Each structure stands twice: as structure tokens, then as C-alpha cells.
């Protein structure tokens, strides 16, 4: 390369004057890199570069003069921009573009390059001036922005597609349900409704969709019970199950409606899924069944009362010398009539329990005295067995005395039924913490471990036992349900052939076990 005086730059030997020197000094002071190439030389060598170019490229002037500018492209020489440069140069046009260039240390920088031809009087391009700016930071920022934008767009697209999928799924799900379903926004605007709702309540979709729940059907649903339910839901944001509201004045008449509600939070907003069941007819059917059961119980037991009373009368009228066979026959008849009565009672109880209709009364009574009374009654009926009561439970219990008597009678009769004549049945009473425990131990057949849970199911009978001791397998089921309804548990511990102990507990404090209408 030629030696060039720092202060006296020269394009070539052809032009050189003071004005030019001033211009060159100015060029040297700009922040943009400037190079000038000589187009009359082969391969367009650089004949000038300013200070800024040195700073920009990391090359010293000495290292660039005489070289073609392409060294700035390093190995990255397959860029489209090169074609544009070539075209501009051959056409002698201006050209502005951004091109990837590399500093001396190999660092990439984005070069915003402006190429301008310098022509002689005849219009021939003699030089090209290249003005260069390092726009890397801006370029990277743009690029980053573009990447971020793409990312966001992609995420949005994904969310949109997943939202659409969710939406479709939700719609299908809602349409599959027979229950009426509404989806409400936090402000109780209906955002979705299923066909079951529209059909059940005879409401058109546009009458309800995007409207406030309480405006539906001209505000018919704006009743106190429902308003307080909704207030509760929106304030507490807690799910509820099976909340009943009677007499909702819908378009199709006053209805008993059962509500369940579930909240879900999506993108910071709450929505409420409300399912509604019209149980008006179900209630009516239940009421009729209840009436039927009452009537059936009454009608079956009335003739039985006459039969029982007649038998007792005949027994009392018997002469002391009456044939023993007649006396025995009458006793047997009495036993079977009693069994029939128990069966009727158990069957009716079981059918009521099955539908959850058994309601317990809660009255204070002396539990120990009740147990003693039941045992005394049985002693009269089964004088060949000894019933011994050990311990104390409570002389004050709040519960359904009649139902608990029924349980005790059943367990004691079972103990007697499966124990050999002349044996003792023990009744152990105790108090454990805030529970009462009653345990009835017999020395009878016992219950095989595999049946110890099943015997509390409806109509479950242990096969071998069935042949020897008939019954329909309801008593333990009913007893278990009664104890459960009191908040206690009933269970059996036994080994085959060694008797059995049936125990139940009853909580002294019932409040925690009382089932509320709904759990809020």
C-alpha cells in the first residue's frame, strides 16, 4: 500500500487542492465511516477511509487502503445484498442497504451502507463513496422485537386455538347434560346456556344470553332465596352442592329447584357454573311414595294387631288343663306373627332409608334406662337366655329413642337367635371421650371375617346361615343406617364359632355431624 500522509489524503495523483483537504478533514470528523473506492482501478480498491471507518471496522487505514470492500463480509459472502451492490455499481446508481459485516476481531456488525457514485464530466463513474453506520444495536433491538412479537403472536394463536377447543368442549359437555346449566360471569351476566335449560324453562336463547341472571324472564327469578344464594356465592366464592329453593316462580309455574354451583378462575376472572334441577315432580313422587308407605304400614299392621290380640286373648282363655299341643301351636303362631310384624317394619324402614326419608327425632332420654328396659322386655320373651348389663353409658342422650331401641332390639334378638339356649348375652356400656359405646357380646355362631362388612348391606345373608336361620337381611342394614344418622358407627368383631361382639358408638355432641342443607 501507498504511504499516505495523515493530513493530506489523496484520492490519487489526479486531483489535489486545498478545498479538498478541508473536505477530507471534515469527513474525518464525522461519526459515519466513509470509504472511497477507485472505480478506474481493477477490483475497485479503497483509496480513502476516514477515522470513523477505522473505529467501526477495527481495521487501520493501512490495512484497508487498496483492498476491495468485500473483506468486511468475511466468510459471510452469500448475502443477497451483494447482488444489489453489484447491480448498483454496474449501473452507476445510488444504493442504500443493510449488510452483515465483520470487524477485524470477527465480531458481526450490521452496516447501514449508502453507496454513491462520483462521476466525471462525461458521466463515467470514477469513484464510489461508501458511507457506513453501525446499526447493530438497533438491528438487534428490531430483531429482538420481531422475535418477541412472533412469540407473542404464536402464544396468542395457541391460546386462541386452545380457547376455541375448550369452548367447543365446554359446549359439547353442556349439551350432553340433562341438567340445566348456565355459565355466569362474576357480575352474573349469562355467558353460556345449554339447551336443557332453554327447554326446561321454555326460554329462548336470546332472552337470556348476555343478560344479567336476575333480568331473565322479566325478573321472575329475582326471588329472595335465589338472590341470597347468589349474593353468598359471589361474595364467598365457594362452591355449593344441592341447594334447594322452593317456589321459584318460573314461566312454567312455581318450581322446586336444586342448585349446585362451581367457581372457576380463568385469566384472573371468576366464572360461575350453575346447574339447576327441577325436582318439583320428584318431590311429588316422593311425597306420594311416603304417603303410600304410611298407608301400607298402617293397613298391614291393623289386621296384624287384631291377629296378635286374638292370639293373646285365646292364650289367656285357655284352661290350665288344655292340651299342651294346642298351647304350643298357639305359641308358634304368636312367634310367626311377631316375625311377620318385624318383617313389615324392617321392609318399610329399609325402603324409607333407601330414599333418605327416615328422619330422626331428637329428644333427650335416659339411654341407660332405655337399654335396661329393652333387655327386660326381651328377658320376658326369652326367659331361657340371660341378658347381663355391665357398666354405664349415659342417663342423658339427645337422639331418636325409638330408632335406637329398634337397633338394640335387633342386635339383641340377633344375639339370641344365633346363641345356644341357656347362654348369656353381655351388654357392655361405656363412655369414651365424647362418645357412648354399646357392645353386645354373644357366644353363638360368630361371623366369618369375610362377611363382617357385607352383613351391613341390604338383603345380604350369609348362605350357610340362611338355611338354618331364615331372615331377609334388612335388620343390620337398617340398624347401621340409624347409627350412622346419629353420627356413630356400627361394627362387628368375631371369630367363627366363638361368638360375636356387635358394637356401636354414638357421639354425645351431635352438632358437627348434622348435615346441613348445603355446605357453605
Amino acid at each position, binding site marked *: 500500500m501507498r504511504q499516505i500522509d495523515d493530513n493530506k489524503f489523496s484520492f490519487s495523483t489526479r486531483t489535489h487542492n486545498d478545498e479538498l483537504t478541508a473536505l477530507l478533514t471534515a469527513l474525518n470528523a464525522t461519526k459515519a465511516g466513509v470509504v472511497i473506492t477507485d472505480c478506474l482501478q481493477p477490483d475497485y480498491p479503497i483509496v480513502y477511509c476516514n477515522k470513523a471507518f477505522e473505529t467501526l471496522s477495527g481495521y487501520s487505514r493501512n490495512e484497508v487502503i487498496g483492498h476491495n470492500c468485500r473483506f468486511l463480509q468475511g466468510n459471510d459472502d452469500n448475502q443477497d445484498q451483494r447482488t444489489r451492490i453489484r447491480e448498483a455499481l454496474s449501473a452507476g446508481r445510488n444504493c442504500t442497504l443493510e449488510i452483515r459485516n465483520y470487524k477485524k476481531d470477527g465480531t458481526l456488525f450490521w452496516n447501514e451502507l449508502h453507496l454513491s457514485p462520483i462521476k466525471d464530466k462525461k458521466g463515467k463513474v470514477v469513484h464510489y463513496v461508501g458511507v457506513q453506520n453501525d446499526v447493530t444495536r438497533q438491528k438487534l433491538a428490531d430483531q429482538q422485537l420481531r422475535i418477541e412479537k412472533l412469540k407473542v403472536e404464536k402464544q396468542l394463536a395457541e391460546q386462541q386455538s386452545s380457547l376455541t377447543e375448550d369452548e367447543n368442549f365446554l359446549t359439547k359437555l353442556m349439551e350432553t347434560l340433562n341438567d340445566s346449566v348456565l355459565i355466569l360471569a362474576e357480575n352474573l351476566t349469562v355467558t353460556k346456556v345449554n339447551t336443557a335449560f332453554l327447554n326446561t324453562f321454555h326460554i329462548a336463547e336470546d332472552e337470556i344470553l348476555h343478560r344479567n341472571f336476575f333480568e331473565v324472564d322479566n325478573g321472575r327469578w329475582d326471588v329472595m332465596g335465589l338472590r341470597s344464594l347468589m349474593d353468598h356465592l359471589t361474595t364467598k366464592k365457594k362452591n355449593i352442592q344441592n341447594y334447594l329453593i322452593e317456589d321459584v316462580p318460573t314461566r312454567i309455574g312455581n318450581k322446586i329447584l336444586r342448585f349446585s354451583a362451581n367457581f372457576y378462575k380463568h385469566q384472573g376472572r371468576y366464572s360461575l357454573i350453575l346447574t339447576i334441577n327441577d325436582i318439583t315432580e320428584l318431590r311429588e313422587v316422593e311425597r306420594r311414595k311416603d304417603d303410600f308407605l304410611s298407608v301400607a304400614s*298402617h293397613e298391614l299392621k*291393623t289386621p296384624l*294387631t287384631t291377629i296378635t*290380640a286374638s292370639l293373646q286373648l285365646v292364650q*289367656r282363655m285357655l284352661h290350665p288343663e288344655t292340651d299342651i299341643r294346642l298351647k304350643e301351636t298357639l305359641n308358634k303362631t304368636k312367634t310367626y306373627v311377631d316375625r311377620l310384624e318385624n318383617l313389615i317394619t324392617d321392609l318399610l324402614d329399609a325402603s324409607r332409608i333407601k330414599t333418605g326419608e327416615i328422619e330422626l327425632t331428637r329428644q333427650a332420654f335416659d339411654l341407660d334406662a332405655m337399654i335396661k328396659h329393652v333387655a327386660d*322386655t326381651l328377658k320376658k320373651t326369652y326367659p331361657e337366655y340371660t341378658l347381663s348389663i355391665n357398666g354405664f353409658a349415659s342417663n342423658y342422650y339427645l337422639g331418636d329413642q*325409638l330408632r335406637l331401641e329398634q337397633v338394640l332390639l335387633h342386635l339383641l334378638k340377633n344375639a339370641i337367635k344365633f346363641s345356644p339356649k341357656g347362654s348369656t348375652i353381655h351388654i357392655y356400656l361405656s363412655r369414651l371421650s365424647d362418645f357412648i359405646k354399646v357392645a353386645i357380646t354373644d357366644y353363638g355362631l360368630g361371623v366369618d371375617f369375610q362377611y363382617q362388612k357385607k352383613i351391613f348391606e341390604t338383603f345380604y345373608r350369609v348362605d350357610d346361615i340362611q338355611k338354618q336361620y331364615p331372615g331377609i337381611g334388612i335388620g343390620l342394614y337398617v340398624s347401621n343406617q340409624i347409627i350412622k344418622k346419629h353420627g356413630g358407627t356400627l361394627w362387628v368383631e368375631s371369630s367363627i364359632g366363638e361368638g360375636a361382639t356387635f358394637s356401636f358408638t354414638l357421639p354425645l355432641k351431635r352438632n358437627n355431624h348434622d348435615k346441613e342443607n348445603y355446605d357453605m
Partner: protein
Amino acid sequence: MIKKIMICDDDEGILDITGLLLESYGYQVLLEPNSTLLLPRIALEKPDLLLIDIWMPQMMGDEIVRILRRNQETSHLPVIMFSASRESKRIASEAGANDYIAKPFSIEDLNDKIMALG
């Protein structure tokens, strides 16, 4: 000491047999199948105890007991109610009966209850 017992039940079979059973225990028994005629009969016969069914067609047993309890002359008349439905115990106690026995009953249990009120 209870000697004279009035029994009221619309089922005449139960009425007759219960009457006979109680007679066999030495009580004097008065029978009334029609609940609407019961109040004047009680006023007339002045029984020592009333054994009365709950579910009767013309006038319900608990309604009669309430009337008896409001009337000064009969407010202390011992009353045992009987019924074929288990839930009736509550009705009996709310009406103001002294005791209750479920149908079918054992005559010994019934007699124990009568004696307890004597």
C-alpha cells in the same frame, strides 16, 4: 286405681279383641268405634282411662286428646294412644297423651302402662 277403660278405634276387630283382653285383666271396658261420639260418651260414662287410636276417619285421635286437655273436667284423664305407625309416638306426646303403645302390642305391655297410670 283404674277400673273403667274407654277404648276408641274405628277398626271394630281391634276394638272388640282389645276390649276382651282388658276384660280378662278385670277392667270394665267401654267401646266406641265412632270418634265423633266419643266426647259425649266420656262426659256421660266418666271412664278412668282412655285408650284411643290416632288415625280415625271422622275425627283424629290427637284432635280429641287436645279437646280433652282443654276441658277442665277431662284435662287430667289418663290417655294412652295407640297406632300402627311408628312415627305416631311424637303425635301422641304433642297432643298431650300420657303414654303411647305401637300396634300390634302385647297385652302385658299395655297392662303395665295402664297400671303405671293408675
